[in-house]
């Protein structure tokens, strides 16, 4: 065991910050550690598992690839935050390059940079899980205690009137005019300060991310956390997990040390892109590992209004339209979301040269809607020998609901009084009146680099189910084919959720942790 391997036993929880072993703390070239449980990743799944297991008295070690950035160091500059807090500096994309797959890469994972929206798993999704994957133990009733626990722990509550920013008020009015059901979001936030910089991390610890909740709680129960530590492989002997190995790499990319951990239990919580990659590199699991990837491909549909909106002011996410949520009614959700200047540059193509400058000058008059669809699990994550590949193309099956969500977003903008709605495509297309919606949107075709899509919700690449031929994990989160390896992150979801997944991931991680023996 090396110089830094001493256990950090915090008897009391610090009022702020977190005890983390970072690359800068390591002075030897090789670290040899041991634990009862090693957890790969410190995001939604990893942090909840760490706390639940540490509080049971297990010796827990969390290994996180990203850096430890304390809240006070967040800059509220999205361009800088992409560099420090996001996977691949915010440039993680599918192989076609037309779908940006955003994921946090820091202590606390995506929960540090997410928008705080908190939904329980919809009932009809549980029904789908029963029907298609044999997951009869998962019902709204059986999962209710898990949801309640998470909601209480993370101060999840419905937005109050002052948390409905101007963009959300204007668009709520549009939805009401159309007779559509529109509701305030629930969010995991305490005393929101309305700064509007959620995606750059919350500087004052109001967002109840893993960084300020489950991770400090786990540490208080003795869990050790190492940042800058990327796990490459899970080690096994005679069909049983015996630990992991990886590298400590500092923020400049310098390889500081190799690390090897001996542990009889390994919990995979590196997120739906990295968890299957690590398993493939380790040669573990069946041929379902990496398959069935879904991601809620989203559009950000921006529009210009006659009156100033200032989309960066106030709580970032205020209301959503659930009118079309059920697959029988369209299978999509519309969420009203604020945004900053960098995002405005990226989402639309209003025309080149003068039209673009004019569009940007109108930034204070812009508002936007994020569309989420219940996509089929058509993607695949693959380790290609020297890099990961996200194979995901919008399927022809999902294209109609993508277009239906877009048309509904345009309609809602126009009903709310927008002057021009920009279509999220690589060419300059926009709509100014209701009668033109179909004609303009129908110009969009499902071909690479035509649509501008973003995913905030990678899921499903190691899905659970009862049939080994169609699932990578069993209904308790155990990886098939090897003892002692559990999956406790968004990879586990058997089908895409349609709603924002963090609460489902927290609840499932708690469920899996309760079953770790």
């Amino acid at each position, binding site marked *: 065991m090396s110089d830094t391997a001493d256990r950090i036993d915090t008897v009391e929880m610090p009022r702020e910050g977190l005890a983390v072993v970072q690359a800068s703390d390591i002075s030897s070239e090789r670290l040899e550690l041991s634990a009862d449980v090693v957890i790969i990743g410190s995001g939604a799944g990893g942090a909840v598992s760490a706390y639940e297991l540490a509080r049971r008295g297990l010796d827990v070690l969390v290994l996180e690839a990203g850096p430890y950035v304390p809240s006070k160091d967040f800059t509220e500059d999205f361009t800088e935050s992409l*560099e420090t807090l996001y996977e691949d500096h915010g440039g993680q994309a599918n192989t076609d*390059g037309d779908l940006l797959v955003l994921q946090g890469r820091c202590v606390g994972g995506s929960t540090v940079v997410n928008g705080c929206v908190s939904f329980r798993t919809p009932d009809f999704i549980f029904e789908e899980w029963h029907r298609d994957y044999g997951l009869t133990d998962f019902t709204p009733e059986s999962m209710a205690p898990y949801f309640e626990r998470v909601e209480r722990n993370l101060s999840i509550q419905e937005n109050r009137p002052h948390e409905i920013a101007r963009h959300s008020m204007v668009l709520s009015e549009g939805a009401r005019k159309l007779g559509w059901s529109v509701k305030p979001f629930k969010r995991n936030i305490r005393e929101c300060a309305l700064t509007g910089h959620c995606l750059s991390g919350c500087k004052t610890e109001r967002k*109840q991310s893993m960084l*300020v909740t489950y991770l400090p709680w786990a540490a208080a129960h003795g869990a050790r956390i190492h940042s800058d530590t990327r796990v490459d492989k899970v080690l096994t002997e005679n069909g049983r997990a015996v630990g992991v190995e990886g590298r400590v790499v500092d923020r400049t990319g310098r390889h500081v040390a190799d690390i090897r951990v001996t542990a009889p239990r390994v919990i995979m919580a590196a997120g739906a892109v990295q968890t299957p990659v690590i398993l493939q590199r380790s040669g573990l699991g069946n041929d379902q590992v990496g398959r069935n990837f879904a991601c809620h491909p989203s559009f950000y549909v921006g529009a210009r209004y006659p009156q100033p909106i200032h989309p960066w*002011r106030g709580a970032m996410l205020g209301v959503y339209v659930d009118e079309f949520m059920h697959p029988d009614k369209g299978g999509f959700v519309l969420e009203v979301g604020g945004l900053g200047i960098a995002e405005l*540059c990226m989402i639309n193509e209003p025309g080149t040269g*003068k039209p*673009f400058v004019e569009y940007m000058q109108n930034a204070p008059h812009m508002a936007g809607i994020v569309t989420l669809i219940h996509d089929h699990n058509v993607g695949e994550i693959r380790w290609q020998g020297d890099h990961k590949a996200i194979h995901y193309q919008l399927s022809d099956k999902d294209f109609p609901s993508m277009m239906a969500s877009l048309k509904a977003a345009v309609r809602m903008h126009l009903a709310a009084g927008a002057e021009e709605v920009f279509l999220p495509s690589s060419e300059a297309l926009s709509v100014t009146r209701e009668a033109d919606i179909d004609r303009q949107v129908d110009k969009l075709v499902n071909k*690479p680099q035509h649509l501008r899509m973003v995913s905030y919700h990678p899921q499903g690449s190691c899905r659970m189910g009862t049939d080994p031929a169609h699932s990578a994990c069993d209904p308790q989160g155990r990886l098939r084919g090897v003892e002692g390896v559990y999956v406790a992150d968004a990879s586990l979801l058997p089908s895409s959720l349609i709603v924002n997944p963090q609460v489902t991931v927290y609840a499932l991680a708690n469920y899996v942790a309760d079953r770790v023996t």
Partner: protein
Amino acid sequence: MNNNNLPTAGLEPLTRRGFLRAATLTGMALTAGCASLGGRRTPNGEAVYAHLSEEEARVLTRLTEILLPTEQFGLPSSTGEVPTVANINDMAGDMAPQTRDLMAMVLWIFERRPMASFRFSRFTRLDDEEALRYVRAMQSGTFFERGLMTTLHTAVCVNYWRDSRTWPGLDYHGPVTGIWGVRRLGNAPMPTA
């Protein structure tokens, strides 16, 4: 106009997979620190950048002029006041070697791509109107062209508007927590059960 039928001269070195990885440039485009306009200049007044070749800097400067004619709108100049190209230079300095190579290839192709349909001229030698037409043709062109153009467009625009000197023109407030003096809450209390 649509140049879908342009010959693919100049695209040969670009394998599909290699090009697709250029998608990472879009992300990289967002991550440069803000630079200043200072720096060395050649005798004919061209700026010299540490991480961009002379040709790359010329292509990016010309592209910035074409994409962002900001002065006409009373905004800080995209090539004079705001160091858009210097910001891209900083970005290039931080890139992983593989991504940097891709950026070089993208710029090389972009400079030479107009040769077939624009009187065999390079991009930097086209007049304003032709240059704009070329960019638009790329935006509605083939899969490769659309991707390449989206990447460059995003890189230029983000590296202009990320600079706080452009914010007053948009009534954008930037970071606020410090200005507002928002109190920190620290870690959440441990749950009781």
